[in-house]
C-alpha cells in the first residue's frame, strides 16, 4: 500500500500558503470539531496521548504526556504554548518547509493544542534567518484572525487565543526549550536549571509547553482523522505517525521525504522515491542519523536500521531531528568531526564551565589533527575531554550533543584518526571542493 503524504500533502501546490487553499482542502475542520462542544481540553490531550505522538523536535518525548505535566491548578497563572520553530540542528530543514509551504497546518495544530492546554496566548519562536517563513506566518496568522480562527471567542466556542510570531536572531541554543524561554523573555538564551520544569515554571514564571513545528502539525491530523488512524501509521505502537526525514550529504536526491515512522535507512538513502542512491556511484562511509548531535553510524550499522526513536536508540544513536547526513568514502572523518566541533564551539552559550571550555578545546585539538599537527596522545585526549563534559556535568545537554560526533567518530574510525596523526594527513579525500552544478 503506498503511503499517502499527510504533512506534505499540499507542498508544491499553487498558493499552498493561502487560507483559501487550506480551507478548501478541509483545513480548520479539526479545529471546528474540537471547539464544537464535544471535545473538552482533557479529551483532546487523551486523544493525543492515544495517538502515541512523540515530539518531533529531537527529544521524542510523548507529547500528550508532556501536556499532562501542566498542573491542574495553575494558581491563577496563564498557560503558555510556545512553538519551537528555531530549527537550527545541522542537517535539518523540515520545519522550514512546513512553515513556508503550509503554515495553516501548523497554526491549526497550534490553536488546537492551545485549547487542550487552556492556553490564552502562544508564540511561534522562529529563527531569525527564516525571514521568508516569518513573513508567510505573519500573513497566514492575519488570515486566520480575519476568518475568526484566532482572537476572541473563536467560532463562538468561548475559547480565545492569540498567536504572536517572535523572531530569534542567530543562536542554536535557543532551540533548547529553556534557552528558548529565556530568549522569549528578552534575555541571552542561556538554558535554565531543571527542575523546575517549564510545564510548572516556564516563560514569565508561568506553566509553559514547548512543542516543535512538526509536532503541532501532527496534532492537526490527529484531531482530524483520529488517534487510532495516526497510531496505525509507523513501525510499532511506540513509534507512530507520519515522519518527515531530512536527507542531505552525498546522495543523488537530498530533500525532505515523508514516510511512516520507521522507514528503513537504506530505503531513504537508496529508494527511487527517496535519495536514489549515492552520488557518482560512491559508497557510504558513515551516516549521521539525527542531526549533528547524534552518534555517527557506519555503513554496516545502517543495514538494518529503522529510522525511528527506538530503532536508532537500539543502535546507540538517536532519531533526533531526523536529519540524515550521508558521508561517502571520500570523506575524511576527522574533517567532518572538526567541522561539527566548530559548530558546537560557536553555539555554546558559555554559561557553564565544562561546555564553555570543553567545546573550543575539542575544536582546537581536531583542528590540529586535521591540519597535520596531531600528537600521539590527541585521540585519547579527545575521548577524555568528551567524557568529562557530559552526564550531568553541565546545565543542559548541549555538551552531551557536542561530544556525540567526537566519541562516535573516534569509536568507529579510530584507525583513521591514528593514520591522520601518524602521517600528518587525511586517510581519504582532502577538503571537499565545490562542484559546478549542471
Amino acid at each position: 500500500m503506498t503511503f499517502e503524504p499527510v504533512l506534505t500533502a499540499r507542498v508544491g501546490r499553487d498558493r499552498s500558503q493561502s487560507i483559501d487553499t487550506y480551507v478548501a482542502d478541509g483545513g480548520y475542520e479539526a479545529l471546528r470539531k474540537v471547539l464544537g462542544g464535544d471535545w473538552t481540553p482533557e479529551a483532546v490531550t487523551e486523544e493525543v496521548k492515544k495517538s502515541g505522538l512523540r515530539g518531533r523536535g529531537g527529544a521524542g518525548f510523548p507529547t500528550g504526556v508532556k501536556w499532562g505535566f501542566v498542573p491542574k491548578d495553575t494558581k491563577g497563572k496563564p498557560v503558555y504554548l510556545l512553538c519551537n520553530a528555531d530549527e537550527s540542528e545541522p542537517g535539518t530543514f523540515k520545519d522550514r518547509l512546513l512553515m513556508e509551504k503550509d503554515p495553516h497546518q501548523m497554526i491549526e495544530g497550534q490553536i488546537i493544542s492551545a485549547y487542550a492546554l487552556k492556553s490564552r496566548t502562544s508564540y511561534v519562536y522562529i529563527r531569525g534567518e527564516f525571514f521568508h517563513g516569518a513573513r508567510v506566518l505573519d500573513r497566514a496568522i492575519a488570515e486566520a484572525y480575519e476568518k475568526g480562527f484566532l482572537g476572541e471567542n473563536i467560532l463562538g466556542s468561548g475559547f480565545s487565543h492569540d498567536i504572536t510570531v517572535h523572531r530569534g536572531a542567530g543562536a542554536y541554543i535557543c532551540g533548547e526549550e529553556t534557552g528558548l524561554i529565556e530568549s522569549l523573555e528578552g534575555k541571552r538564551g542561556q538554558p535554565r536549571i531543571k527542575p523546575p520544569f517549564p510545564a510548572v515554571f516556564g516563560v514569565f514564571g508561568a506553566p509553559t509547553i514547548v512543542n516543535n513545528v512538526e509536532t503541532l502539525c501532527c496534532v492537526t491530523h490527529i484531531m482530524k482523522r483520529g488517534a487510532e488512524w495516526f497510531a496505525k501509521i509507523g513501525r510499532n505502537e511506540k513509534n507512530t505517525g507520519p515522519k518527515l526525514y531530512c536527507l542531505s550529504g552525498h546522495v543523488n536526491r537530498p530533500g525532505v521525504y515523508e514516510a511512516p515512522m520507521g522507514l528503513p535507512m537504506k530505503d531513504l538513502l537508496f529508494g527511487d522515491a527517496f535519495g536514489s542512491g549515492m552520488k557518482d556511484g560512491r559508497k557510504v562511509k558513515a551516516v549521521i542519523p539525527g542531526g549533528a548531535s547524534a552518534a555517527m553510524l557506519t555503513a554496516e550499522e545502517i543495514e538494518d536500521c529503522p529510522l525511528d526513536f527506538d530503532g536508532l536508540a537500539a543502535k546507540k544513536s538517536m532519531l533526533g531531528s531526523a536529519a540524515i547526513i550521508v558521508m561517502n568514502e571520500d570523506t575524511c572523518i576527522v574533517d567532518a568531526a572538526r567541522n561539527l566541533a566548530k559548530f558546537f564551539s560557536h553555539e555554546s552559550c558559555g554559561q557553564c564551565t565544562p561546555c564553555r571550555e570543553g567545546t573550543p578545546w575539542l575544536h582546537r585539538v581536531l583542528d590540529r589533527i586535521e591540519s597535520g599537527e596531531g600528537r600521539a596522545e590527541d585521540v585519547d585526549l579527545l575521548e577524555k575531554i568528551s567524557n568529562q563534559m557530559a552526564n550531568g556535568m553541565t546545565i543542559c545537554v548541549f555538551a552531551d550533543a557536542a561530544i556525540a560526533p567526537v566519541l562516535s567518530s573516534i569509536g568507529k574510525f579510530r584507525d583513521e584518526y591514528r593514520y591522520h596523526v601518524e602521517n600528518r594527513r587525511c586517510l581519504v579525500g582532502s577538503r571537499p571542493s565545490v562542484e559546478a552544478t549542471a
Partner: protein
Amino acid sequence: MTGRRYSVAPAGRPAEFPPAALERIEKILSRYPTKQAALLPVLWVAQETWGWISREAAEEVARILELPAAHVAGVLTFYTMYNLEPVGRHLLQFCTSISCHLAGAEGLVEHCRNRLGIDLGGTTPDGKFTMVEVECIAGCDRAPSMMVNDAYHEPMDLASLDALLGTLP
C-alpha cells in the same frame, strides 16, 4: 562576523526612531506581558531602521524598554544576527556547517574572498559587500547554501556565485 562581539560601535549621532518604527514598537509591546520580552523584536526594528545597531541605538532601546544598557548590550552581543557595526549593502552569509561543508562550502568562501579581496567579517571598500560565515541555515538539501541579506541562494557553485556577485546592484 567571525570576530569577537565585544564592542557596540558608536554612530556618533543620537538614535531617534522614525514615527513608523515607533508605531511598530508600540504594537510589539502590546503582544508581551513585560517590556523586556519585547527586546529582541525591538532590536530587529532598530536593525531594519539603520541596518545595524549602534551604541546610541542600543541605549535608545534600553530607554524605551526601561532596561539597563548593559542588559541590552548582553543580548545584542549574544545573538549573531544583530550587526554591531555598519555592513555592506549585501551581507553575504556563507553556511559552513556539515552538509554545506561536505558540498564544498569552504571552496565557495575561498573563491569569494579572493574575488572580493576581503576576509571573513570584512567589507569591500566600496561598501557593497560584507562576507561572513554562518552556521546551519537549514538549506542542507540545497547545499552549499547561502543567504544575501534576507534571501536564500541555494545551491551555489563557483559559477553561480560569480554570476550572483556580478548582478547584485
